[in-house]
């Protein structure tokens, strides 16, 4: 028996932290007026045992805040204490159970303790109030059965739910006449696959059939191929016969032709060929031989002609030898002509030279003149001297005249100056006067130096001129050393220069002294007189200076005059010597008398040149004469030697020579020709012989061939050869034709053909056409068979490679397997459902009597013996009651009070039956409040008895009978305020 010991409400509805102890009592009465929280405690106990859905829990959240939850202390069926705790917000509000030691128990512990009784079942049996006494929905057997089924862990709902669910699943798995359920669909597939498989299950047989069919086709093909091959063979034979028909005809023609010829014809092997070959070889040789003979004749004729024109060898040799000298002659002749031309040239030049000399002398005169190289030199010197003297003497004369003229002028000028010049005394007086005058005065140095300086200046000019003249003369001397006669004047000039140079030096001292004196005199003039004196003295000085200068010049002129005179004297002497020489020359060469000396050198040159020319010409004349002698000698020799050959005596020698030369060349040519022809004749003879040597064996062999066949002429030979050739050709043709026929036709046919038994061309054509038609037919048949065979092959291949059967087989078995699996599943569900239904029926059938018996017992007690039986009316399927009067009442005939009592009785009956399995506390909330007092007592008595099996927790009001009976054992009363 499960018993609640105490409650500890942490918070539930109006209750906060409320502890209620049942004091191990089995019958607890909880007393309280309305709104004191009785129902809440009942709900709390139910919450602790079965929990509440979250929505329902909302109703019981503590009104004044705090945690929803509590603790229930129980004594389980095993007699041990346990604790059940629940929190609204902990462990998903599931019960947390602990054993005595406080160890937490498995989550399903409570479910097990309740033996699967859920709130619904509990409510139906153990929890009731005045409003829930009745079994809802009447009292049919099923309804009552439901109640009974509800007794136990299963609960009728579960059973019905289970039935329903299982039925649903079963319906989805299979329906005997359905189409949609799984098994029905699989069955459909399976039937389909089975059908397909049946079609293919003989795949091997089909394959075999295909194979056999293929073999049939193959056999047919083979047969047809054989037939075709035969036909083709026949066709080929016809075709071949047609093709070689000409050969067959030819063969028979050849045979006919051969019949006309001897059976055998003797003829050397390759005779005609050999003969013809020899002939062919001989023919060109013969032609060559003819040509060679002809050539020989021609050459000999030609030789004769040449030889007729050819001079005797000695004459020819002589001619050649002489003519060899002609070149020499020509050389001499050319030399001769050359000399002639040179002589003429020289003569012309001599004449020209003589003409140019205008001397009117002949060559002989010239040659007589004692002219030589010295002459020319002498003449040259004379001419030069003459020229020089002629130039120098007038110049000197002119210079002399000029000097004399200057001298005259200077003398005149001097005289005039001398008249103006003071006498020395006058001057001295003046100077003394001036000196006196100047004594008071300091002499000015400028006055002294001035005339001196002027003098020095003049002196320097003179010196410069003198040095220049000296250098000039010196230079001329140096450059005219070759012409010695010119050196003299320059020497003179040099000397004069030197004189001019040294004279002033000497004169200078004197001049300085005079000047110093003059200065001293001038300084002595008085101031008054001084100016006059100075002027007069200055005039005087000036005049005197001029006099001195002129005197100096006169002196110089005298010197020059002397020099010139001297030079003139020298030149005159020289001139005299020259004239002497000229006379001498003019003596020797009279023509010079009319020729100025200066032309003499040229004349000498001309004359010498002419003399040279004459001498050269003379030498040329000698040479020419020598050549002429040789030429004449040669001509004479030639003319003498070849008088016979010279056709015309009037011809010039040159023409003769040309003629002979031509003749010689001609003869030479003839000779060469003769030689060449002879050589060619010799060669030609060699060729001719060679050809003949080649011809000989050929001719012999040809003759031999003729001998062999016993003929003598070529005609006979040719005739025989032709016969033989014809015979041979025919023989060969025959053999070739046989070969051809044999090559293309089989032996048996060949035999017939050769024997003359063969089809004509038209017959063959007919046969060919027939054969062609047949072959075409056969080919068509074959193609058709090939096609069929290929198709069969493809079918076989397809069958071999096809996984269709395999797949279908697998699929079939797969589906079949699936079908069986599903069928088993269906059967499982079916079994489960069947068993539940069956059990349900049995259960109802087995346990209802017990429950009704118990219910009868309790109703009897409650009604105090009024009702004696609670039973089912099997016909009406309704509960009925039997009173102690024997009256029967259907449930629907009973008063509400009696019905309530009946249901209490049934509940108690069920609980009694259920107590075999589980003993749970009854929670009764004034369930019997509308029972009359007596019946309440009866109920109370029943419950008191029942408390030993089920703990009774009774909720009631203060004035309840249950409260009034206070002295009851093992009972506790709890008052709520």
């Amino acid at each position, binding site marked *: 028996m499960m018993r609640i010991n105490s409650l500890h409400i942490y918070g539930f509805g109006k209750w906060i932290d409320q502890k209620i102890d049942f004091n191990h009592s089995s019958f607890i009465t909880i007393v309280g007026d309305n709104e004191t929280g009785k129902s809440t405690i009942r709900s709390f106990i139910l919450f602790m045992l*079965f*929990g*509440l*859905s*979250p929505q329902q829990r909302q109703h019981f959240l503590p009104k004044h805040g705090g945690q929803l939850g509590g603790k229930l202390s129980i004594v389980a069926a095993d007699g041990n204490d346990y604790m059940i705790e629940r929190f609204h917000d902990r462990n998903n509000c*599931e019960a947390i159970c602990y054993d005595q030691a406080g160890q937490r128990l498995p989550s*399903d512990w409570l*479910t097990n303790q309740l*033996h*699967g*009784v*859920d709130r619904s079942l509990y409510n139906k049996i153990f929890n009731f109030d005045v409003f829930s006494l009745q079994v809802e929905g009447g009292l049919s057997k099923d309804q009552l059965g439901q109640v009974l*089924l509800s*007794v*136990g*862990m*299963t609960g009728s709902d*579960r*059973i019905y739910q*289970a039935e329903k*669910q*299982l039925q649903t699943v079963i319906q989805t798995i299979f329906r*005997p006449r359905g189409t949609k359920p799984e098994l029905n669909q699989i*069955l459909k597939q399976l*039937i389909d696959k*089975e059908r397909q*498989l049946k079609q*293919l299950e003989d*795949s*091997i047989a089909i*394959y*075999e059939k295909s194979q056999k069919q293929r073999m049939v086709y193959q056999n047919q093909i083979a047969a047809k191929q054989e037939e075709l091959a035969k036909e083709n063979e026949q066709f080929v034979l016809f075709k071949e016969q047609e093709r070689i028909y000409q050969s067959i005809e030819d063969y028979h023609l050849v045979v006919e032709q051969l019949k006309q010829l001897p059976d055998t014809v003797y003829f050397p092997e390759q005779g005609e060929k050999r003969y013809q070959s020899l002939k062919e070889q001989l023919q060109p040789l013969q032609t060559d031989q003819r040509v060679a003979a002809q050539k020989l004749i021609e050459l000999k004729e030609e030789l004769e002609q040449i030889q007729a024109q050819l001079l005797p060898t000695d004459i020819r040799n002589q001619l050649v030898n002489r003519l060899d000298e002609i070149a020499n002659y020509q050389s001499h002749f050319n030399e001769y002509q050359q000399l002639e031309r040179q002589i003429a040239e020289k003569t012309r030049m001599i004449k020209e030279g003589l003409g140019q000399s205008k001397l009117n002398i002949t060559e002989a005169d010239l040659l007589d003149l004692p002219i030589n190289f010295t002459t020319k030199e002498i003449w040259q010197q004379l001419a030069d001297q003459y020229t020089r003297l002629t130039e120098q003497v007038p110049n000197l004369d002119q210079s002399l005249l000029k000097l004399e003229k200057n001298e005259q002028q200077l003398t005149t000028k001097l005289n005039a100056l001398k008249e103006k010049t003071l006498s020395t005394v006058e001057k001295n007086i003046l100077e003394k006067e001036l000196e006196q005058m100047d004594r008071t005065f300091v002499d000015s140095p400028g006055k002294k130096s001035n005339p001196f300086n002027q003098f020095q200046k003049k002196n320097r000019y003179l010196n410069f001129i003198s040095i220049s003249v000296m250098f000039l003369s010196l230079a001329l001397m140096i450059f005219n050393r070759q012409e010695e006669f010119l050196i003299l004047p320059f020497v003179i000039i040099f000397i004069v220069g030197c004189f001019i140079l040294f004279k002033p030096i000497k004169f200078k001292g004197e001049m300085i002294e005079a000047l110093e004196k003059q200065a001293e005199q001038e300084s002595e003039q008085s101031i008054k007189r001084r100016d006059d004196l100075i002027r007069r003295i200055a005039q005087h000085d000036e005049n005197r200076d001029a006099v001195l200068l002129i005197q100096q010049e006169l002196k110089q002129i005298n010197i020059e005059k002397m020099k010139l005179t001297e030079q003139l004297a020298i030149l005159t002497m020289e001139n005299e010597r020259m004239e002497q020489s000229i006379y001498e020359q003019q003596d020797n060469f009279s023509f010079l008398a009319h020729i100025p000396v200066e032309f003499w050198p040229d004349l000498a040159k001309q004359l010498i040149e002419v003399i040279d020319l004459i001498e050269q010409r003379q030498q040329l004349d000698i040479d020419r004469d020598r050549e002429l002698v040789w030429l004449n000698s040669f001509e004479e020799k030639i003319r003498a030697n070849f008088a016979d050959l010279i056709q015309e005596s009037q011809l010039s020698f040159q023409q003769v020579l040309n003629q002979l030369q031509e003749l010689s060349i001609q003869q030479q040519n003839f000779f060469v020709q003769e030689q060449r022809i002879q050589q060619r004749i010799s060669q030609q003879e060699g060729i001719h012989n060679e050809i003949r040597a080649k011809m000989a064996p050929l001719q012999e062999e040809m003759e031999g061939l003729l001998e062999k066949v016993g003929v003598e002429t070529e005609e006979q030979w040719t005739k025989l050869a032709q016969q033989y050739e014809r015979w041979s050709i025919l023989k060969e043709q025959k053999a070739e034709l046989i070969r051809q026929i044999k090559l293309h036709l089989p032996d048996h046919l060949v035999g017939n053909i050769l024997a003359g038994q063969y089809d004509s061309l038209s017959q063959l054509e007919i046969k060919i056409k027939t054969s062609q038609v047949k072959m075409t037919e056969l080919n068509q048949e074959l193609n058709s068979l090939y096609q069929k065979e290929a198709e069969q092959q493809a079918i076989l291949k397809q069958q*071999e490679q*096809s*996984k269709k*059967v*395999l*797949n279908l*087989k*697998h699929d079939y*078995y*797969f589906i*079949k*397997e699936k*079908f*069986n*699996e*599903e*069928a088993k599943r269906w*059967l*499982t*569900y*079916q*079994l489960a459902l069947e*068993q*539940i239904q069956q*059990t349900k029926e049995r259960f109802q059938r*087995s346990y209802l009597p017990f429950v009704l018996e118990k219910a009868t017992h309790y109703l009897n007690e409650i009604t105090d013996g009024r009702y004696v039986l609670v039973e089912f009316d099997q016909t009406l399927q309704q509960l009925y009651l039997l009173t102690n009067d024997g009256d029967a009442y259907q449930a629907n005939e009973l008063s509400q009070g009696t019905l309530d009592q009946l249901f209490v009785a049934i509940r108690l009956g069920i609980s009694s039956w259920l107590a*075999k*399995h589980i003993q749970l506390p009854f929670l009764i909330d004034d369930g019997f409040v509308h029972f009359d007092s007596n019946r309440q007592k009866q109920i109370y008595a029943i419950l008191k008895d029942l408390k030993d099996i089920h703990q009774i927790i009774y909720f009631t009001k203060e004035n309840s009978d249950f409260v009034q009976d206070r002295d009851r054992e093992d009972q506790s009363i709890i008052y709520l305020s």
Partner: protein
Amino acid sequence: MTEKIKFIHCADLHLDSPFKGMSTLPDSLYQELKNSTFAALDNLVNLAIKEQVDFVLIVGDLFDQSVKSVYAEMQFIIACQKLNKVNIPIYLSYGNHDYLEARQHTFTYPENVHIFESDQVEVKVFSKNGHPLVGIHGFSYSERAVLDNKTTEFQPVEGLAYQIGMLHGSIQQSTEHDYYAPFQLSDLQTKNIDYWALGHIHKRAILSRNPAIVYPGNTQSRSIKESGEKGCYLVELNQMETKLTFKALHAIQFDRLSVNVSDCQQVDQLYDLLYQRLSSLKKQKSIIFLTLTGVNQTLVSHYYQGEIDEIIMLLNEQQQDQENWQWIQAVEIERERQVNEARLKENDPFMNQLLTDFEDINWGQLSKDLWQHRQAKRFLVELSEEEKIKLVNDAKDLALYHLLGMNNDENK
């Protein structure tokens, strides 16, 4: 010294066999799965070439006879051609699944394929380097069942270094149900055969070492019943010993995975746990049948509300594009049924009645709507006892979930 031999022993290739228990798979993976038996065949060929074996033994059930497919035949021919190129002979016998093959001659195999066509044991001699070396004995099924013990027909040939017996069959269990060439282990052990190449049983097993009596298992799993690696044995035989090396050939592995989820209160925790467990598995293409153990009430509730399926869907979605995908094909929860039921019976009269009623089921009545359905019945397989037990348990769980599974607490 006698030359040693090296060969591959495989059986039960079931080349075009359908897969079982595969009712959900995305198309791409489904395509791979369909091709997996052929991929395994490719792997076999590659292994033979790589190992340069002397020959390959295929001991029955090369094909699945349910529906014959030309494609499968051609794939096998192509494989044979590859081996022919490297001169590796194939010795082939047919079993209970492909017995019809022995009769038909539709397909021409390459010359390296040696077929035991007779239902009587024949001997084919394998020569190496021109010398006869191995006598290979075998027979093919001519009917679906071979009831006789064929071991008596295996007679070693004199003068050969090795004798190999190819036997597609199973150990005799009882006289009534042995349809597949039943034999006793002792029958084989007493024969003078060096190596017994067995076939038919898809789970590989070495029944004996001396002489070696070996089931190589099938090469590719076809359902969760054939979980784990699948392949063949590479056998190296000499006069002294028989060396057996298992070589995996499967393209896709079927695996069972059991995960204790007792620490998971919520689905997100479950998701993390499953993700970790899957990540820790070997990376290979695998189809996983997941069992959750230690499932609490909350998860059970999630399970029935389809939330665990959603997690699985999420995990699968992540795998779908992976090269080595791991696809969770099914998920089951395992609970302490006995304890729960006892308590329920005790506490709840209805449950007591219900669970009691589960012990008496009228299957015929229950299933008639479907199993007697005019169209459906031919596709449905009669349920085995095992399946019935599972179905009852599932139905119980389902009923209980619907009756009790939801939380009684009102708080929700």
